[in-house]
């Protein structure tokens, strides 16, 4: 039985959608690869006490120049950037929407954007995305009000990203989970294997940008990495709540309220382990009126362990429901309801690449300067705004792959900052430029002309100091 791709296939539903080149070819009736139907493929079998999957050919879904795995902040930034430089880009996303943790994870706070003197140090594609949100009603609030960070709306951002992907001409595959790297005889990456409703398929590429967050592709390709465990939470949005109470005596980051350094009326020395009653306000305001987003730190968990992930997915939703019930007991909050819990768990860090350059915590605290700087992170806690070197995106050994987003090469304390949304935009954009330049100059990512990368980033409005 032959598979026939006709109208109604991926991205071919109507005139609004640009049809991707690969599918366009298929729809155009040209040679279609012989893909056996799932039922006819030999299934895994039990051999003794082991389950064995038979060796089989993986059908090639598509061939591309730059393959971006992961459609979160880093992945979308990388894909848009590379595509604008005129190379063929394919973007693959595990969920049914784009934006990753910024939308599906409800990480709506866009920080850290500013340095210690409240100067914005992250521009480029991130600034462009925020500008697009500026003109969308209820898209973004607290723009250009340092040190208060902007907050975006998840649905507005999904809308902006979806429109941009369709307009850009990027070949995108959603609901498609990158599961393996394709490696040639020399150990260089040639693409990635995906699992989707269409089964297991391969996409061949010259350069792969791993924006999976967990570094799934570089790990599969054999790149060395450090596995870390940290807190995993689940963000939610609560509706029908008044704007966060910023009255004096309460915490806020409003710079117009000088620190008085002592408690307000009726507040005194807090007792140890005082029970939190949310003081009548929980979470922080979002662009949507009377809707707050409620962050959760969560316990330490292994983001690569399905048992941990399952447990947290279940318990976090119970815990969030309980906290909303607690919140409702406060006078004035009786009508508060849980709008949604995030579709995606708030995984902060899992794998950290061992790159050409591992960004060290001492370096960022001492304001280290890198000759291969590709962008800045804003100031966060006791770390000032710091430079991110290109070397932290390049694996130490494996060829043809770049990392961007939270899984780049950095020490844990640094990665705890570079994992944040705007910094992912920065590393994503840099990886996109570098990958496109590799295609144009026919070179490996580690040999790319960094000065040219910096020049291009500069032209694209990125801030490099």
């Amino acid at each position, binding site marked *: 039985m032959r598979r026939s791709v006709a109208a109604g296939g991926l991205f071919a539903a109507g005139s609004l959608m640009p049809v991707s080149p690969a599918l366009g070819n298929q729809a155009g009736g040209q040679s279609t690869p012989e893909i056996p139907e799932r039922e006819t493929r030999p299934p895994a079998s039990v051999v003794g006490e082991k389950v064995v999957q038979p060796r089989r050919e993986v059908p090639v879904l598509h061939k591309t120049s730059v393959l971006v795995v992961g459609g979160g902040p880093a992945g979308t930034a990388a894909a848009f950037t590379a595509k604008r430089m005129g190379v063929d880009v394919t973007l693959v996303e595990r969920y049914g929407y784009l934006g990753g943790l910024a939308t599906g994870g409800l990480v709506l706070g866009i*920080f850290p954007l500013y340095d210690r003197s409240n100067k914005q140090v992250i521009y480029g594609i991130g600034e462009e995305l925020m500008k697009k949100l500026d003109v969308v009603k209820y898209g973004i609030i607290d723009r250009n009000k340092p040190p208060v960070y902007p907050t975006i709306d998840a649905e507005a951002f999904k809308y902006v990203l979806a429109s941009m992907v369709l307009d850009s001409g990027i070949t995108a595959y959603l609901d498609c989970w990158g599961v393996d790297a394709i490696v040639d005889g020399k150990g260089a990456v040639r693409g990635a294997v995906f699992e989707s409703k269409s089964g297991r398929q391969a996409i061949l590429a010259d350069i792969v940008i791993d924006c999976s967050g967990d570094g799934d592709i570089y790990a599969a390709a054999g790149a060395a990495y450090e596995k870390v465990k940290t807190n995993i939470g689940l963000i939610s949005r609560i509706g029908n709540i008044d704007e966060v109470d910023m009255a004096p005596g309460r*915490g806020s980051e409003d710079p117009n309220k000088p620190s008085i*350094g002592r408690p307000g009326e009726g507040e005194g020395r807090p007792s140890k382990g005082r029970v*939190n009653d949310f003081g009548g306000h929980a979470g*922080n305001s979002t662009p949507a009126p009377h809707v707050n987003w409620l962050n959760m*730190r969560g316990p330490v968990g292994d983001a690569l362990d399905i048992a941990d992930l399952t447990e947290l997915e279940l318990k976090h939703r119970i815990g969030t429901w309980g906290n909303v019930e607690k919140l409702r007991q406060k006078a004035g909050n009786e009508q508060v309801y849980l709008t949604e819990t995030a579709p995606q768990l708030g995984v902060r860090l899992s794998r950290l690449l061992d790159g050409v350059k591992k960004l060290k915590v001492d370096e960022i605290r001492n304001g280290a300067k890198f000759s291969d700087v590709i962008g800045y992170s804003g100031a966060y806690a006791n770390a000032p705004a710091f430079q991110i070197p290109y070397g932290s995106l390049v694996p130490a050994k494996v060829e043809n792959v770049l990392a961007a987003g939270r899984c780049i090469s950095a020490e844990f304390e640094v990665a*705890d900052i570079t994992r944040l949304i705007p910094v992912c935009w920065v590393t994503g954009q840099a990886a996109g430029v570098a990958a496109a330049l590799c295609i144009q100059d026919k070179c490996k990512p580690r040999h790319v002309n960094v000065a040219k990368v910096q020049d291009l980033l500069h032209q694209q409005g990125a801030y490099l100091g």
Partner: protein
Amino acid sequence: MTLLSRVPRRLIQLACFVGAVVLVWPWLPWTAAPRFFQQVSPFVALSSSIAKRSIGVGAVLALVVIVVSSFKKRWFCLYLCPTGFLLENTSRIGLRKTRWWGKLPPVGRYVAILTLAGAVAGYPVLLWMDPLCIFSSPFALNKATSAMSVFLVCLGLGVLVGATFVFGMAWCVRICPLSGLQDMLFAMRKALWSRSTASAPSRKFADAKLVKISGASAPEVRSIASMRKPSGIARRAFFAGAGGALLALWARRSGAARYRKSDTLLRPPGAVPEDRFAGLCIRCNNCVHACPTKIIRPDTGHEAGLAGFGAPVISYARDYKYCLETCNDCTQVCPTGALTPLALEEKNKYIIGEALADNNVCLTALGQKECDACEVACPYDAVKITWDEAQYIAYPVVNDKCIGCGACEVVCPTNPVKAIRVWTLKPA
């Protein structure tokens, strides 16, 4: 003495004045220099040694001054004292030229006695009247972070200069406890000297004369003669001493002296217990001056009450400034030992206060922001954002490694109230 008499007195005074400025101002790489400046004063060295029941290194310097000034009257005032030099020159351009203060009682002696008696009770009551402390205090101006601090560090010397300009040299001659102490030392030396050497036979002779005239027995006459003239001074001295001891006990025990016991009263590292600190502290502001992060400031009395007026307190209100884990300077400059000298490792174990988080303000506990600023900032690994499974929230938990350095408080982003703040350590 012969050498001194040849050089003009003004020149020596000027040299000492410049020397004092060099010692107090941190031009020298020697952190502890200001401490040795004040310890030259025998008033400071004696009182603090008695109050602390221990003799400091600087007491040796004071001993030299004690010996010399007991042979040459007011030698210290005339040659060494930079405050004296300043006031002497102020009086030259001042309004009052007459020597009206000659009528004043020797207040300085009573202040000295009162303070020494207080020191015996562990609280040298008026030690802050020492002229060297008053001189060095305004040097902390460059570390003053508020108008109130500027006022407080300049208060002592400002009052002295102003008063001398208007009223003349009354302070130096009659009120200064250091000059009073010197006068007493001189008188004591004279009394001892005359009794032990040449005066013994003549006194015997005089007594014999008296016996002859009055017809009374010899021992009786001797007691009358010795009591008659200094009786008024001795009585006042006795009352001053008793008053000093009582004041000391009152200040140590009574809540009235510390009318407001703030929950956020934090003393610089090495501070002796609060019941003695305000007395032992001479308000020289050396510690204010020494602090590189400007977190030490003189108290208005708001934190520790009347007794603590002008004594140093720590305030972490300024952004990004805390008690650095790389610094123990303030503990090295205290001339009286109100701040015990601590090595860096010891200072990093001295508990200034305890950090406590308020979960109803904390951005993390309220789910407002992804914030772990306090945990990241803590140099002692004492703050951990901890997940509370029962409440299903996370908040900062402070363990017993906390010394209250304030690193968490200064980075806490909440305004106007910090979600994590350092509080006075409550006894368990």
